[in-house]
């Protein structure tokens, strides 16, 4: 029979297992601490891991990116304004959009009319505009259509220059400004998130740990503060303060810590009545020791997760404020101001909007995915 064939194992291999006292009681696999478990779960999360890599790359680029070109943050030169993106090697792959050509479709009553419109649009440099007829037209209004490609680098005699991401309306290099802007946005987000963290943990920790009257008073104050919409507070603060990095950080932290304070208070209240805290107290540990050695490590997970979600919020608010004209002021660059300039030129020079928009989206997605990953990692239910 088949089953017998499969079981053809030489008899001499089958040796009875020796039973001894110590091995039978041994538990296989070493036990892991909570943090090791959390790390394992996080490292298994491919999306979160990719996000970390993307984010580290963006951070490194915001540090070294501006030095990769010879242009400065505020190198204005109107003769080279609104140049499209052009990258060596990649310029030969037309669909990538790094060719350094401006291109658009023009309509007219006949081909000549459309061509004239195209040339007028492109600085009247007829020699450098390449016309491709899409439809001949029948003489009626806007029936003919041509596709014009304008080699602006050639026309301006800048064939040796490469603006990797193009230039803005004042001829400033977008690559340089993009990474400097990222640096500013990241700085604002990180500083705002960490100040919020410090205030929130201290406030919530004190309220939760001491409880009673202290907690009552602190929570009443917090309740009133939470009732005021943070959008309103941020807008009011930005009106009063001078625009700049510090004011944005101040405006964001004034409201940013309340969420953290509530969470930390809840956690501390839950933890402080646990047996191990009672044991530590009975053994005569000081309040400070109990807080730093026993409580903080146990709520660190929730603090980290909360901070990871605060950072993208701060990035969004910075961009939002700069967008409505209350945030960073020119010539300072931030992702918000870059996007704002991009919107002013969206119809004719979409590349000015595309790159900062992609970058801010990438940053936000990465932070959110890392936050999700950490939430899973610190959730004991997810450990396998």
């Amino acid at each position, binding site marked *: 029979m088949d089953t017998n064939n499969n079981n053809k194992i030489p008899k001499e291999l089958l040796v009875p297992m020796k039973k001894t006292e110590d091995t039978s009681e041994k538990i296989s696999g070493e036990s892991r601490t909570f943090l090791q478990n959390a790390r394992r779960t996080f490292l298994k999360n491919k999306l979160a891991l990719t996000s970390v890599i993307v984010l580290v790359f963006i951070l490194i680029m915001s540090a070294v990116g501006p030095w990769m070109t010879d242009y400065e943050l505020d190198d204005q030169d109107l003769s080279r304004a609104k140049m499209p993106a052009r990258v060596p090697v990649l310029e030969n792959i037309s669909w990538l959009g790094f060719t350094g050509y401006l291109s658009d479709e023009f309509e007219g009553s006949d081909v000549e009319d459309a061509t004239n419109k195209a040339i007028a649009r492109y600085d009247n440099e007829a020699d450098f505009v390449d016309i491709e007829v899409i439809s001949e037209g029948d003489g009626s209004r806007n029936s003919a259509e041509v596709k014009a490609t304008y080699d602006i680098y050639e026309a301006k005699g800048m064939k040796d220059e490469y603006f990797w991401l193009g230039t803005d309306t004042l001829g400033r290099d977008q690559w340089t400004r993009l990474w400097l802007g990222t640096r500013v946005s990241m700085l604002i987000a990180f500083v705002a998130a960490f100040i919020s963290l410090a205030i929130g943990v201290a406030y919530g920790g004190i309220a939760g740990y001491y409880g009673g009257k202290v907690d009552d008073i602190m929570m009443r104050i917090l309740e009133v503060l939470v*009732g005021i919409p943070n959008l309103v507070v941020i807008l009011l603060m930005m009106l009063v303060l001078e625009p700049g990095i510090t004011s944005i950080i101040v405006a964001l932290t004034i409201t940013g810590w309340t969420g953290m304070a509530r969470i930390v208070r809840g956690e501390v209240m839950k933890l402080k009545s646990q047996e191990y805290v009672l044991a530590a107290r009975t053994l005569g540990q000081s309040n400070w020791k109990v807080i730093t050695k026993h409580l903080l490590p146990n709520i660190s997970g929730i603090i980290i997760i909360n901070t990871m979600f605060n950072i993208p919020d701060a990035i969004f608010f910075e961009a939002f404020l700069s967008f409505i004209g209350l945030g960073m002021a020119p010539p300072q660059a931030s992702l918000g101001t870059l996007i704002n300039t991009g919107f002013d030129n969206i119809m004719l020079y979409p590349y000015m909007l595309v790159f900062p928009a992609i970058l*801010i989206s990438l940053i936000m997605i990465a932070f959110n995915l890392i936050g999700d990953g950490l939430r899973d990692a610190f959730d004991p239910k997810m450990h396998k």
Partner: protein
Amino acid sequence: MARYIAKRVMYMLITLFIIATLSFFLMKMLPGSPLNAEEKLTEEQQAIVLEKYGLNDPIPIQYVNYLAGLVQGDLGISFAFSNTPVTDILMDRMGPSAQLGAQALVVGTVIGVLLGLIAAISHNGFLDYTSTIIAVLGTSIPNFVFAGLLQYLFAAEWELFPVALWGSFEHSILPTIALMIFPMATAARFVRTEMVEVLGSNFITTARAKGVSEPGIVFKHGLRNAMIPLVTVIGPMAVSLMTGSMVIEQIFAIPGIGEQFVNSVMVNDYPTIMGTTLLFAALFIGIILVTDLLYGLIDPRIRISGGGK
């Protein structure tokens, strides 16, 4: 319950009072007065202008007048559009903003709930991943980026919708889509998480054992329970709609409250800025209040325990 509502309304009024006071004194701290915008005026003319805006009185009296005006719905007179009360400006511009907000909220939530539902049913399947990706993108990507993308592709390139301005229903389609992304993504995430949990609970097994049809289980037993926590995210959704109204009305040149706010910021029209801020605050606080009451109403567990906290 009545006592609870009374307490909450009082809290709300106190908060509004604080915001009004805060914004009044901030307004006094700011540089600039209606005189800046005028041509060179004689002493008497200046006095007349100051009289018109009530700026001659000492600040405490101005404060009392301001509060008295607020109670009657009078938000002062705009600096930029002289002689126009801020209340009138805001009333004029309420329509487009309200329409956009309502459309975005309703359409976004409905689509979001459906997405979440589909994801939960095909748990860990292809559709689940697709809708999870949509949800992550929707909560992460700023709404103005979406707005730019929509405007460029659908209006400028493919010419399917008007690029900007306000008028017919078609004008409202692109802004509504840009605005509804966040409510949609949030609803999808919440409903999915809740639905997965609810579908795994004992009463669903009981329902199955009793022979309830699959649609009955999903919609009657599952969805109704999974939707309850959705009420708690109405707050963040409201904030997103307000920030969204500012940027998206600006991008699509819609004559709404958000656009008014941004323009007022540009010209330092403080009374209008403060009026808009107060309106946003009142709206937000009102929404949170309604949310909390609603939560007590639809979740019997909270109602029974005496109105929650």
